[in-house]
């Protein structure tokens, strides 16, 4: 039997070649799961901020017309709460939460109907809309010659119904 026909040790070699590939695949799956968790937390932060802003109503306008209207600072309230909620996930973020919230596109439509210039949606009630790009750290992706920071695009829309 020649050496070419001798298969002793082939399993070791095969394992040595496939193990890195399996480890890389496993790390990618774990990173993808972590990214999905981060995306859920960022989306929840935007949703909660929009809800809080809608819950802040203009009492004077309500007394005058009997209809719910957003306060003049509804957009500021939404941005502030978005920053606060993002701060709870700061280890996952690539930039400070306040900076992300400051760069977010927050729009408050006090009267209805209104049309969203960004999304084209029609709002039949006073509405708060938050659209933000949230950079999330993905170090495993960076190690795999991908982007070390993944940008998440979130949009939250809330109105009283």
């Amino acid at each position: 039997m020649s050496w070419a026909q001798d298969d002793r040790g082939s399993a070791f070699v095969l394992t040595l070649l496939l193990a890195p590939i399996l480890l890389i695949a496993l790390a990618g799956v774990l990173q993808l799961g972590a990214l999905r968790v981060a995306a859920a937390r960022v989306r929840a932060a935007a949703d909660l901020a929009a809800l809080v802003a809608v819950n802040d109503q203009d009492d004077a306008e309500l007394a005058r017309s009997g209809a719910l209207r957003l306060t003049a600072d509804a957009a500021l309230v939404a941005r502030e709460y978005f920053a606060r909620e993002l701060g709870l996930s700061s280890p996952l973020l690539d930039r400070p939460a306040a900076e992300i919230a400051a760069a977010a596109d927050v729009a408050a439509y006090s009267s209805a109907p209104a049309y969203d210039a960004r999304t084209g949606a029609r709002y039949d009630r006073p509405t708060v809309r938050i659209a933000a790009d949230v950079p999330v750290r993905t170090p495993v992706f960076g190690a795999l010659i991908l982007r070390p920071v993944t940008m998440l695009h979130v949009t939250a829309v809330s109105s009283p119904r």
Partner: protein
Amino acid sequence: MRLRVCATAFAFLVVCSSPAQGRDPFRDEGRSEPLPPESELDPAPFIAPPPDLYYVTDTYVADVVATSGPLTTYTTTTVHESTGSYARTLDTVGTGASSIYDGSAFNGRRALGDGRLVAGTYYENYVLIDAGFVPVSIVFFQDDAELARLLAEPTPPGKVVVTPPPSPAGTATGLSPAACCVATPQWPLAIPAPAPTKPIRPGISLLAASAPLSTVEVLRGRAVALWLRAFVDDREVPVRSWTLIDGEAGDALVTAGAGRVPFRSSWRRLAPPGAAYHVVFRIDVDTPETGHRTVNGTIAVVVRSPALQD
């Protein structure tokens, strides 16, 4: 010898005697003797009402002013109902006669068109407590009529104005036939039709001085205050009292109050989609301009809650 035998037999019987072995009917229940009868609590001592007090069987409901042509009658409506209270007659007054109880009745004593006070009877209501009979309120049962009032202060023919009391506490009974003062007509029978009374327009607003609303949107669980108001010719008149008579009151603790007190509530339950809670208030107005009248005000409450959209 015979006597000795008899004495010995008697002594033997006495020594060997034992109690009769009767069946114990309570043996199966674990006790040998029936329990003594439970001592019954003494009933509440009966307190007889004083001779001038009587048990109320008819409860005061409202003062009624009915106009039929030239005749205006002032009566009191009652409902046959026992509230457990007692009453006594304080004073029976005729038309224009004053009484020491004037101003003490919770439902007041109105005046005729010429300014004289109406005839009727004052009753004082009592409740029975441990300390005895305690007076709680005075009610005036009006019973009068007039003819001349229409010439000076016209009222639509056939109009009946029911003016309920500010609180339903008044009770009395035994309406006495108070002196009615239907005056002898001094004018010809052809009386011109009276002009209609100025209508009272109810208003409900979120502030004491804001615009009246027919519909209001409120956030779920948010406390709001609804002010009950009344207007005559776009001029606001004071509201004496108000009562919630229909609709979903939400979490309101008080459903009646004085005019200076708003109705406060919050709604934690949303109405069906596209629907609203229609809340109806009875607004009581009593001013020299309007007299004692009531109007109903309705407001539609739309309860909303912040929600997310896709």
